[in-house]
């Protein structure tokens, strides 16, 4: 049906890299007037970057621009700022709200585009001081809201609104722009209740009938199937597949999204079973109040000696599990380790019981950026286990043992192949991959009994990735340390882990052996998304 419609937007060979890290490769896409396409892909697949290019975001230009052509209405365009993009008829609703909390709906919808009337003061001081035509503003806002087909209060102040209404206000703002031809919705339903999401889908259909083309990004595949004409699936910066929504289904899309390997064959490493091993860690009714990664009710058992993977989409709570147990965010529930209950909200007690944690936030939590590698690696072991210290006056004075610190640092620099000028180099000066290795060394130096590793390969290059994963596996095999590995990359979990638990909606949606197919894991990922 697209063929009859005029092509509105065409992307030709779009390329984008961030400092040599290729995030978009050879993107080709066509969009007709009034067409609704669903854009799906895992986190980091390149959806947001692509939309930023379309919208002329500053950060694209600051990082060296992009390759390829964007053709709008048959003309090649290159937006130097979002204002140009708005001028050309592109509207975008962001994941985060960009509304003014103290203004009413109407004021937000028409912000900076208010109909005005000249008055005495503005005659003198310029049109910034024109009087607002309140009644006309009301009408235009009402029109925009009506176009969505939902009922929200025009005079309510944004800060008093439920999130769903804020989302609608954002959409209404885009709709009130007369030149609007293409609307980009970036996970608009993430914060909506079911009923509100339903209403939004209706309004998408309505907008499409008016000839507005829509790019709809969401993790809820049912919504895509319900409302879109076409589904475009991205993975690792490529468009891997596109299909009319009527000819595909959730399972198929999931497989396109997550499967590096469409056949879905077993992971390369033989998985071990630890069925007879005893449970070393049991988590009951865990909740964690970590912003953006709320854990609601997690029950999980970890077997001694295994590598347990925890996967799931961003925001579903997988990161909250280790952060909550380690006491970095407020948590509740019951955690029993090796027969002893571990008190929550106390990092020290966890560390004393033999836990170690490699945080996903390398620079914020994982490292002392302005200190030497020696300090970074030896510090936790020094503070928690009194190692690398010389005792004087019967232990009254605990003096830093620089020699022992240097020895252990050199040992890890060698065994993990950390590339640095010396053990006294500052952590800040290392590359991301090497910083990650320092974080691992720090955890290894604690000689933990249970190691939490969160997003061990985030933001590091392929070579370093393999090394980090191998180091973890070796640590597990040789020292018998139980590892809980949290990662957004399913393939990585399938390669390294024995079992994979999938978190969805702040709960464990299921646990499968690592040899399970990508479709099964993917289905779990999406099963309880909220």
């Amino acid at each position, binding site marked *: 049906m697209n063929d009859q419609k005029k092509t509105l937007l065409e992307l030709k060979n779009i390329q984008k890299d961030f400092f040599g890290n290729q995030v978009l490769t050879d993107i080709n896409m066509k969009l007709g007037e009034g067409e609704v396409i669903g854009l799906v892909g895992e986190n980091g697949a390149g959806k947001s970057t692509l939309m930023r290019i379309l919208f002329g975001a500053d950060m694209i230009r600051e990082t060296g621009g992009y390759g390829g052509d964007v053709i709008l209405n048959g003309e090649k365009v290159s937006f130097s700022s979002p204002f140009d993009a708005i001028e050309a008829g592109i509207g975008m609703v962001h994941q985060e709200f960009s509304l003014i909390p103290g203004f009413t709906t109407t004021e937000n919808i028409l912000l900076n585009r208010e109909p005005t009337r000249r008055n005495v003061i503005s005659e003198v001081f310029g049109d910034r001081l024109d009087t607002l035509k309140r009644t006309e503003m009301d009408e235009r806002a009402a029109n925009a809201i009506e176009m969505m087909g939902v009922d929200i209060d025009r005079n309510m102040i944004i800060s008093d609104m439920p999130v769903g209404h804020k989302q609608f206000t954002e959409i209404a703002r885009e709709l009130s722009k007369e030149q609007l031809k293409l609307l980009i919705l970036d996970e608009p339903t993430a914060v909506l209740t079911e009923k509100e999401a339903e209403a939004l889908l209706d309004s998408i259909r309505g907008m499409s009938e008016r000839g507005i083309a829509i790019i709809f990004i969401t993790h809820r595949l049912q919504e895509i199937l319900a409302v879109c004409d076409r589904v475009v699936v991205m993975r690792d910066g490529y468009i891997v597949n596109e299909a009319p929504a009527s000819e595909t289904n959730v399972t198929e899309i999931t497989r396109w999204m997550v499967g590096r390997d469409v056949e879905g064959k077993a992971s390369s490493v033989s998985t071990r079973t630890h069925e007879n091993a005893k449970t070393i860690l049991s988590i009951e009714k865990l909740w964690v109040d970590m912003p953006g990664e709320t854990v609601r009710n997690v029950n999980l058992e970890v077997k001694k000696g295994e590598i347990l993977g925890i996967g799931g989409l961003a925001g579903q709570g997988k990161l909250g599990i280790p952060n909550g147990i380690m006491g970095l965010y407020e948590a509740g529930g019951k955690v029993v380790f090796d027969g002893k209950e571990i008190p929550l909200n106390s990092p020290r007690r966890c*560390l004393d019981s033999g836990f170690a944690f490699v945080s996903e936030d390398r620079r914020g939590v994982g490292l002392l950026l302005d200190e030497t590698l020696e*300090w970074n690696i030896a*510090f936790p072991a020094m503070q928690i286990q009194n190692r690398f210290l010389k005792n004087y006056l019967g232990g009254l004075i605990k003096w*830093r043992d620089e020699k022992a610190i240097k020895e252990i640092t050199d040992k890890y620099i060698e065994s993990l192949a950390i590339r640095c000028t010396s053990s006294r180099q500052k952590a800040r000066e290392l590359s991301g991959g090497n910083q990650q290795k320092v974080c691992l060394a720090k955890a290894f130096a604690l000689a933990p009994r249970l190691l939490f590793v969160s997003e061990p390969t985030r933001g590091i290059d392929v070579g370093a990735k393999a090394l980090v994963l191998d180091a973890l596996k070796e640590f597990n095999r040789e020292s018998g340390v139980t590892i809980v590995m949290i990662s957004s990359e399913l393939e990585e979990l399938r390669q390294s882990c024995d079992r994979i638990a999938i978190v969805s909606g702040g709960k464990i949606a299921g646990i499968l052996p690592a040899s399970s197919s990508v479709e099964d894991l993917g289905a779990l990922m999406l099963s309880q998304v909220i």
Partner: protein
Amino acid sequence: MNTDTKKEKSRLKKMVESFGLPRLLITLFLILLLILAPIVGADLPTQITNIIARFSWNGILVLAMVPMVHSGCGLNFGLPLGIISGLLGATLSIEFGFTGAFSFIMAILIATPFALVLGTIYGWLLNKIKGGEMMIATYVGFSSVSLMCMMWLVLPYKSPNMVWGMAGKGLRTTISLEGYYINVLADILHIKIGNLEIPTGTILFFALLAFLIWAFLHTKTGTAMTAVGSNPTFAKAAGINVNKIRLLSVVMSTWLAAIGILVYEQGFGFIQLYMAPFYMALPAVSAILIGGASVNKASITNVIIGTILFQGIVTMTPTVMNNMVHMDMSEVIRIIASQGMILYALTRKTEGSK
């Protein structure tokens, strides 16, 4: 040829960068003053004696900055709080009738509990307002000085050497230490060669405290303090009680300020009350910054270099300038140097965090 000079230039630039442009300029200025001094007719050994003496008085007050900088509480603009503890120790020691060197030891002993209590309260307050420490510290300093302005008048001091002559109550603004602990430290192993004098005892006392701080920073707790300042989240994840460490640093800083003011007084010869503590924080802050410290990194070397440079300029400018232009420029230069230095350091903080 061209590339050679370019290389040379970049090397020079690097050197300047590592040494710090302001520190370089101030060093050059001080050297210039030292060269000019004999030319304009000032006696160089006397000038150097002055610099050394002032260094020995102020060293510990500057040293008091170090613990709080290490724990990430920033520069201790609340120094007057510690100074007040010291002043309480000094006045009470005299009030209780101690004299000579013993009055100095008693002053330290009496000042200590005040410093510990006030420091704890101050530290507790700073833990409540993480991120805005320096601004709050400034106001803590200011308000404590104002409160004590009233207290000095009201507290029932009786010693005739300290109270106003006519009224018989309320402390005087300046109290002479003659007969008490004037020069108690300076006179130990005092060296005098012609016009050059060195207060060896005071310098040794400073060296002892500086050594203790240096040593402390090499212990387990000291390492934790530096880590807390470097990245509090990292420290928390490593099981450190961040608030406790910060509190400890504030107490240490306050106690050092109390000792620092007592050492200052024994050299200066007077106890100064009322608004005097008000003016003590900024010179100490700018001295450590001139010494090359930043808002979150400071070493003992920074303290020593900074105190010498800052006090050098403060003592040299009046003599040299007055002899040259017959006009008192010293105060202006002191203010420009100290405030400018603080301003520079605060802008550098945002640069560093990027």
